[in-house]
């Protein structure tokens, strides 16, 4: 059950987002949102001083996020002289079929005027969003992001493989599963390339992994010598391949139909890799910007990560953290170790939870109000 948007996509939430296109507009955006209950606001440090490729990368990340199907309408708040103006982002979002209003501070009579005008526009977007109704939608309309973080020895044995089974089920039903963290694919390229759907995907997998290795080398480290580290070895991991196999398993075992850049929307359905760093919030934000309406996040040590616009389902790898962090963690894959679930039944449980959450059930992160947001940077700010 979801909200059918005018561009054909289906949202699982119905948010009105107030989004500053540049850090200079953060306070105005935040005040507008505070005074307009029902809206949500995201602030960030970007929007100006981006060079070349990073400018395109930032535009893609911001428009992808604001254009996620979970967003019914977005109010872009800008300053006026920044690189990423509301006009620039607004045009791209409208082209993608998103409902957009814009406000530019330098065109207004000061902050109070900007806030007053912004509130009027937000009111309009809220009224329109109220008109949206949930309707039946197929699992094939879903894109689910899979991410692991604050992992432990058990993450690769319980929570990740079970999440992978849920991803496999979604892909079999025609939906899309997406996973990222290129650094955690190193050493397991031989597995990923064998599952590549075509030569282009194969070349891209080898491309993004060797670029990541090169970037690490440029900082004076050889990841193949540094990994697995002493802590990993003490924990029982014997090779980099073993470590990466445990990480990539969260995406399941389907063929990989496409490799996309950070925050790039896939054109194919099925299992997709997004190039990106291992950073939890940056990865989650990037997959949501790529179009994921729901994220499944596995953890062993516990992390509260959520998103302002998408439900994040947390799956623990062990029962101890699940019981201690019950307010944060939705499902416990530690039940596999306790003999209460098999990997397969846990995978089905995660899949069913995805469908329930997509149909409206709140996740623990949503109840607690976790709304972390961060965009990957690929260059220096000038």
């Amino acid at each position, binding site marked *: 059950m979801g909200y059918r948007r005018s561009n054909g996509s289906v949202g699982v939430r119905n948010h009105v987002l107030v989004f500053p296109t540049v850090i200079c507009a953060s306070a105005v955006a935040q005040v507008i949102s505070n005074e307009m209950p029902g809206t949500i606001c995201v602030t960030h440090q970007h929007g100006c001083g981006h060079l070349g490729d990073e400018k395109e990368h930032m535009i893609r990340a911001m428009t992808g996020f604001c254009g996620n199907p979970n967003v019914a309408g977005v109010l872009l708040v800008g300053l006026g002289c920044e690189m990423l103006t509301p006009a620039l982002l607004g045009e791209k979002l409208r082209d993608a079929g998103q409902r957009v209003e814009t406000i530019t501070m330098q065109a207004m009579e000061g902050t109070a005027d900007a806030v007053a005008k912004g509130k009027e526009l937000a009111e309009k977007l809220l009224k329109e969003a109220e008109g949206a109704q949930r309707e039946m939608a197929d699992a094939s309309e879903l894109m689910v992001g899979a991410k692991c973080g604050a992992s432990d*020895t*058990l993450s690769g*044995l*319980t929570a990740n*493989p079970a999440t992978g089974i849920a991803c496999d089920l979604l892909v079999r039903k025609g939906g899309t599963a997406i996973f990222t963290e290129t650094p955690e694919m190193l*050493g*397991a*390229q*031989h*597995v*990923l*390339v*064998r599952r590549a759907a075509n030569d282009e995907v194969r070349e891209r997998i*080898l491309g993004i*992994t*060797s670029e990541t290795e090169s970037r690490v080398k440029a900082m004076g480290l050889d990841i*193949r010598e540094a990994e697995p580290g002493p802590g990993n*070895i003490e*924990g*029982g*991991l*014997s*090779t*980099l*391949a*073993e470590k990466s*196999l*445990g990480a990539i*398993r969260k995406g399941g*075992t389907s063929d990989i139909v496409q490799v996309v850049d950070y925050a790039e929307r896939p054109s194919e359905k099925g299992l997709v890799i997004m190039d990106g760093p291992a950073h939890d919030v940056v990865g989650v934000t990037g997959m949501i910007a790529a179009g994921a309406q729901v994220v499944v996040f596995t953890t062993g040590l516990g992390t509260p990560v959520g998103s302002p616009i998408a439900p994040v389902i947390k799956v623990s790898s062990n029962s101890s953290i699940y019981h201690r962090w019950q307010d944060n963690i939705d499902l416990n894959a530690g039940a*596999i*170790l*306790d*003999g209460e679930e098999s*990997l397969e039944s846990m995978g089905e449980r995660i899949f069913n939870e995805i469908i329930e959450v997509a149909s409206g059930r709140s996740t623990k992160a949503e109840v607690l109000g976790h709304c972390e947001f961060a965009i990957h940077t690929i260059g220096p700010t000038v």
Partner: protein
Amino acid sequence: MPQSAIVIDKKDNVATALRQLEEGRSVRVEIGDDAVEVTLLQTIPFGHKFALSDVEPGEPIVKYGEIMGLATKKILKGEHTHVHNVEGPKDRGDKE
């Protein structure tokens, strides 16, 4: 019943200990619907692996149904399988 060790994929030739398992102990490991009994030749710490069958030098160590490394010496069923007898696969998949 809490499990002592876990096998992720039917193709795997190693199991991972879910708690410290003492030398000489016989462990029942479930592999899908089947199960295998393994007598441990050493104490296996939590999170570490032991072999489910004999592995010859140069043969693959399989976990997650995938090659995670190669045996650098003969590994016996029930033996601790770690950095002292396993090395990572050298290829990246583009030279196969």
